[in-house]
């Protein structure tokens, strides 16, 4: 008999570009059953797209979700950090698993290629930032292969058209959140994050470079560690690619990746949005699969 996959019932709150790109990804997932997309404006392009695909929508946002909470297991919150702090109180009461796409940082931080296992019991999972999702796997892989790591720095450049107002108004938060997560996952005491926005047309692919200062005895070991990690990331982010192999330059071990998105909603160059959404789907699917195992 063919195994019946019981899919987790999912909702998306926030019908901006992140929310709608997530919608396409959630619909493709064999482990998720997307029940609704809620936003704040009936006229928004996002809600209109969801309606066209036959998904339940509402412009009543969290209120609509609250009325239908019993039919939902997982909610992706793609609103804002401020809204998420309020929404989270409701998610907890309704016992929904929350995947936080905002920089609110209430829950456990997850980078799927590193610590997916550790979030199995979490009810609120935060995904750091796009630059964090692109760089932390590399920082972690480098830390694993270094004898001592003193400092880690990350510079990311994203296409202007992929940087929405929320990103632009919260660059400071982006930097602080990314720096903190870099320290947490690499174990260094010092970190720095830089974000550039490039307006070139057509849009440039997201590009992230990691600089590491410390001691290592084998560059080959560092390269192997990075290579292995890149394969892990590629399992859930197909467009993740090394463009500069680890190389020593100016006293720093330097490695660069680009992230090309799947082009679900935003153009393919917006790898920054794609990678954080891919990470969110990976978290949701892991949760769904673990739940099945537990249930069995």
């Amino acid at each position, binding site marked *: 008999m063919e195994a019946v996959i019981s899919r987790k019932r999912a909702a998306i709150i926030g019908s901006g570009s992140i929310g709608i790109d997530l919608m396409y990804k959630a619909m493709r997932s064999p482990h998720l059953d997307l029940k609704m997309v809620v936003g704040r404006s009936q006229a928004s392009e996002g809600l209109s797209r969801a309606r066209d695909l036959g998904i339940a929508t509402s412009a009543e946002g969290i209120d609509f979700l609250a009325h239908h909470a019993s039919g939902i297991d997982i909610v992706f919150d793609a609103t804002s950090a401020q809204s998420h702090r309020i929404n989270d109180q409701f998610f907890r009461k309704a016992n929904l698993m929350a995947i936080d796409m905002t920089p609110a940082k209430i829950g456990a931080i997850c980078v799927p290629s590193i610590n997916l296992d550790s979030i199995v019991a979490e009810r609120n999972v935060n995904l750091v930032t796009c630059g964090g999702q692109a760089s932390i796997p590399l920082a972690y892989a480098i830390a694993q292969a270094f004898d001592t790591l003193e*400092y880690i*720095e990350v*510079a990311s*450049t994203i296409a*202007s058209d992929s940087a929405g*107002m929320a990103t*632009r*108004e919260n*660059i*400071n938060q982006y*930097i*602080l959140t990314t720096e903190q997560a870099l320290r947490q996952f690499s174990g260094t005491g010092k970190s*720095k994050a*830089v*974000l*550039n*926005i*490039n*307006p*070139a047309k057509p849009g*440039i692919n997201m*590009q992230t*470079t990691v*600089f590491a*200062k410390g001691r290592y005895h084998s560059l080959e070991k560092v390269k192997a560690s990075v290579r292995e990690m890149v394969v892990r990331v590629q399992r859930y982010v197909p467009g993740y690619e090394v*463009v*500069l*192999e680890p*190389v020593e*330059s*100016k006293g*720093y071990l*330097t490695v*660069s990746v680009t992230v090309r998105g799947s082009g679900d909603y935003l153009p393919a160059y917006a790898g920054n949005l794609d990678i954080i959404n891919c990470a969110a789907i990976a978290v949701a699917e892991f949760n769904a699969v673990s739940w099945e195992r537990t249930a069995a």
Partner: protein
Amino acid sequence: MITITDCTLRDGNHAVRHQLSESQIRQYAKQADAAGVDIIEVGHGNGLGGSSALLGTSCLADRDMLETARSVIKNGRLGIHFIPGLGTSTDLSTAIEVGVDVFRIASHCTEANVTAPYIESVRNQGKSVYGVLMMSHMAEPAELAQQAALMASYGADALILMDSAGYLAPDDVRWRVQAIQELTDIKLGFHAHNNLGLAVANSMAAVEEGAELLDACIMGFGAGAGNTQLETLIAVLNRSGYRTRCTFDAVAGLAHASQQYLDCLTPHIGTANIASGINGLFSGFAPHIKRAAEQFKVDEFQLYRLLGQRQLVAGQEDIILETAARLSTTH
């Protein structure tokens, strides 16, 4: 009266890979202040928070640089350069604590809206705040004007156009200044680089169109081929009937005195700087490109061309290494 911002201790830091020392900053800030310069800008070449693997590590912390300058500036004002995405609000708080007077909040010329929270915050703390549009050759005059109007709407007291690549010619400057004036009455300033030998001419074009603030560096000491040479600028401005607080004699004295301790050569337009200018690349890229070309044994000028095609903005120094590595494998 034209207000002069002396960027020697900020843009000049690019020329020495961000290694300006405490004693150099103390001596120069003191002498520039005595010479009658209006605003003395201090910091890492890329501004607050710029010290990094990406751009180069400075030998002094931001706070130390600013405190050193603050302690000797008596008549003029102390300024900083700040780029959202590179510096953080903590860096701005440090600058406010130290007593910085003029905050120049910068973005790439098409991305002004990233500066909004910072311009508003600094302004609410009662400080002078200027919006800065960097790499202004990369936007057409009409678009630049819209970006300038945005910065004005956030509360900027003035708007500085930077020709960070040293790419513009005098007419390009005029069109940009005119377009901005059609949209907003914000006070305007211009910051030139001398890659194509046009820094003074471009600065004069800007004031002739109504700009009231100009940036310059002693002997042109700045990124790439250097900035507008302060001594030349004052001489030309005064000869053309524009008044400045500092006189030619005073800045000539400053040039002479600073030669004793600033290891800057009289500005020199190297062929690499010309390549940087015509390819529209940030002037501060030059040492990074030279080093990457050497490390990966590729042609420096071919690297300039490839980077120019990629339309890089300031802050994308990491792409230089990647492009050089790629070029080395395609030989």
